[in-house]
């Protein structure tokens, strides 16, 4: 979990993982990317109760490098890897549901599940608020995935040329590599919409997104053994939504 100035949300994000400690033996790697607010203190106060959280701090370098810092901290015994952003929520039962797929198939590389985009979460229950609006899709999000360690090692790190859309680029590289994967219907993420979402900035994100698409097409042109990324992402339903 990369964190940058998310004191308002990081505690909730971590608690959403801690409530799943009975479902998975979690090692939670938090990389504080030079926050200037109380994000790190918030994380430290949780570590007192939950030593499975490990905090690493660095000068601000952007989300891509922060993710790579996190990957470098994997424990030797870690078999499976997932990601959670510091303003999102991991739904209760998310790990239990998809870990069963790995238990049933030892050669599985990846589960890629669904996400719910939501405008209001109940802080207490960490479930959608009664008056919330939401939509569930199979989108482009690292939290949708649980990745086998061997797959993560094969793919390599996040491409540090990307200031954003590093997640799109990473997922395209994962699927191009032809992993053995399943697409469960699990809701793997509550993606929170709030005024500070970094992807709301104009222009830069879309250029970076276009670059990820461009690089995927170039890679596959140069190397025909790479797989087409077809029939995985499905957010057609979003086209019917206008205002919430």
């Amino acid at each position, binding site marked *: 979990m990369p964190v940058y100035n998310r004191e308002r949300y990081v505690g909730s994000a971590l608690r959403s993982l801690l409530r799943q400690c009975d479902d998975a033996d979690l090692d939670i790697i938090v990389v504080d990317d030079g926050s200037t607010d109380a994000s790190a203190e918030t994380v430290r106060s949780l570590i007192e109760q939950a030593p499975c959280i490990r905090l690493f701090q660095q000068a601000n370098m952007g989300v891509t490098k922060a993710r790579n810092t996190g990957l470098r901290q994997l424990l030797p015994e870690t078999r499976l890897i997932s990601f959670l952003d510091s303003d999102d929520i991991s739904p209760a039962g998310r790990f239990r549901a998809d870990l069963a797929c790995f238990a049933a198939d030892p050669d599985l590389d990846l589960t890629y599940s669904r996400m719910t985009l939501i405008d209001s979460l109940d802080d207490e229950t960490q479930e959608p608020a009664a008056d919330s609006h939401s939509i569930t899709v199979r989108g482009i999000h690292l939290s949708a995935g649980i990745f086998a360690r061997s797959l993560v090692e094969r793919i390599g790190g996040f491409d540090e040329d990307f200031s954003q*859309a590093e997640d*799109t680029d990473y997922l395209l590289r994962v699927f191009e590599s032809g992993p053995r994967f399943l697409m469960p219907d699990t809701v793997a993420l509550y993606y929170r919409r709030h005024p500070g979402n970094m992807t709301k900035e104009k222009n830069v994100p879309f250029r970076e*997104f276009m*670059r990820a*698409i461009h690089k995927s097409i170039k890679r596959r042109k140069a190397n025909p053994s790479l797989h087409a990324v077809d029939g995985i992402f499905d957010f057609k339903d979003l086209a019917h939504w206008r205002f919430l």
Partner: protein
Amino acid sequence: MQQLVYAVASKDIVFESFDGEAVVLDLSTGKYFGFSDSGSRVWEALSSGVAAHALVGQTAGTSTIRLAELESFISQLLEFGLLAPAADAAAQPISGALLAELADTSEPLKVDIHDDLADLIVVDPIHEVEEPLGWPAVKQAS
């Protein structure tokens, strides 16, 4: 046709340049258009209002751009819905820098279509949120 000035056909046509390669997306269909090096320069010129005839005879790599070749390229861009004639627009001058880049190319005029990532391009729920419209006022597939 070679006298004409063109403009980008609609607001669904977005383009960027990466390491000198033009990339054009049609957000309404999710199609990706990739260009050769000379195609990238010509796209850049035409989409910024340079008249087609200003390109004829210009040096592109080891040859010069021929009228027939340019017409065929432009007719593809029109057919794909990337450009549209802009009859009333004043032609823009072609920059010396762009001419130098064109001279430095090595591939013929070419544009390729890819539609295998259309699912991502048509509606990207995370990256394509238009702020003034509220959320999620995503791009409507038409």
